[in-house]
């Protein structure tokens, strides 16, 4: 115990980190990251053209790190409201395991590193899109919209919708219309997904002063808008078939899943408890996962879906 840090610890003179590796991992929001990686991979997979497998892996790694960096910066900025919501008070900063500046530094370094690596190793278009995605999530959603408007997750949802475009750009070097369709799919899926969560977590958001739609406009208006968004999703969900990046099996399943999603929103509309919002939230994750899994399977070598 002769080193400076240990001596400072013993004397209690320096704000030393009590964070473990698991806390840094938690800062990356691994569950959100996994969905981002999945959709980003789908964009890369369905894009026309060829990419070296190593470069493809680097692109996915950069998307994952970029998403994690956004999560870390978000946790730094939202540390005050995270401390009052049950869902988030166990996060490393509000729990006191990590200094806020550590989280910010970690996030900024990862964000810069992922963008530079993407730009240099993959291509400039993918790097620029990744930078835009991180910037949108941090500045537009987290810092500007989240605490100001009930439309926060509608506009902010764009940040989560960019990864397939990044994956697509990694292969093609540009933004094609099919990648815009994949963007639109996640963009219009986000509101009903998050509002289902907000319906059974509205107390948390109210306590934290976050103007989620159920808090500001009430459950009735929220449920109506959720229903409308699930209807808007119908043509968007089947668009990949008509754009030639998915086959008939995708079309059939997308149609059925979209119908089910609307069915869930109707059940939520008539439900006065938390039961159906919880079910719809779970189904919304399944919905997006299945659609993107189908897109990937459709393009699998040998055509797994025929």
């Amino acid at each position, binding site marked *: 115990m002769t080193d400076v840090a240990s001596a400072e*610890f013993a004397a209690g003179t320096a704000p030393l*980190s*009590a964070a*473990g590796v698991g806390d840094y991992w938690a800062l990356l929001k691994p569950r959100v990251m996994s969905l981002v990686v999945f959709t980003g991979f789908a964009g890369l997979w369905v894009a026309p053209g060829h990419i070296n497998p*190593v*470069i493809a892996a680097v692109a996915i790694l950069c998307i994952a790190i970029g998403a994690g960096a956004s999560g870390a910066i978000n946790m730094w900025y939202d540390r005050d409201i995270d*401390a009052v919501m049950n869902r988030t008070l166990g996060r490393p900063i509000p729990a006191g*395991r990590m200094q806020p500046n550590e989280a910010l530094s970690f996030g900024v370094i990862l964000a810069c590193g992922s963008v530079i690596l993407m730009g240099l190793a993959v291509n400039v278009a993918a790097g620029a899109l990744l930078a835009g995605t991180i910037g949108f999530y941090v500045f537009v959603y987290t810092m500007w919209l989240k605490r100001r408007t009930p439309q926060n997750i509608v506009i902010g949802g764009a940040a989560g919708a960019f990864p397939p475009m990044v994956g697509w750009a990694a292969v093609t070097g540009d933004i094609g219309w099919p990648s815009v369709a994949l963007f639109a799919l996640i963009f219009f899926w986000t509101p009903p997904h998050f509002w289902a969560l907000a319906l059974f977590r509205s107390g948390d958001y109210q306590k934290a002063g976050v103007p989620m739609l159920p808090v500001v406009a009430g459950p009735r208006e929220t449920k109506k808008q959720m229903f409308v968004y699930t209807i808007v999703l119908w043509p968007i969900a089947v668009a990949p078939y008509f754009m030639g990046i998915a086959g008939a099996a995708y079309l059939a399943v997308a149609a059925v899943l979209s119908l089910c999603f609307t069915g869930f929103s109707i059940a939520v509309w008539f439900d006065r408890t938390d039961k159906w919002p919880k079910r719809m939230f779970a189904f919304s994750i399944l919905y997006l996962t299945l659609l993107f899994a189908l897109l990937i399977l459709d393009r699998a070598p040998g055509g797994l879906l025929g």
Partner: protein
Amino acid sequence: MGAMSVSMEEFLKRRKSRNKAILAVLVGLCVLFYAITIARLSH
């Protein structure tokens, strides 16, 4: 949101685990840049 107080033993354990993770990341970056170089050269 104050700093969490941990014992000296726990502090040293966490610091060691962080150092090991940083080492793994650095080794990983070396391998990654090597792989990227080879992939770009063969393109």
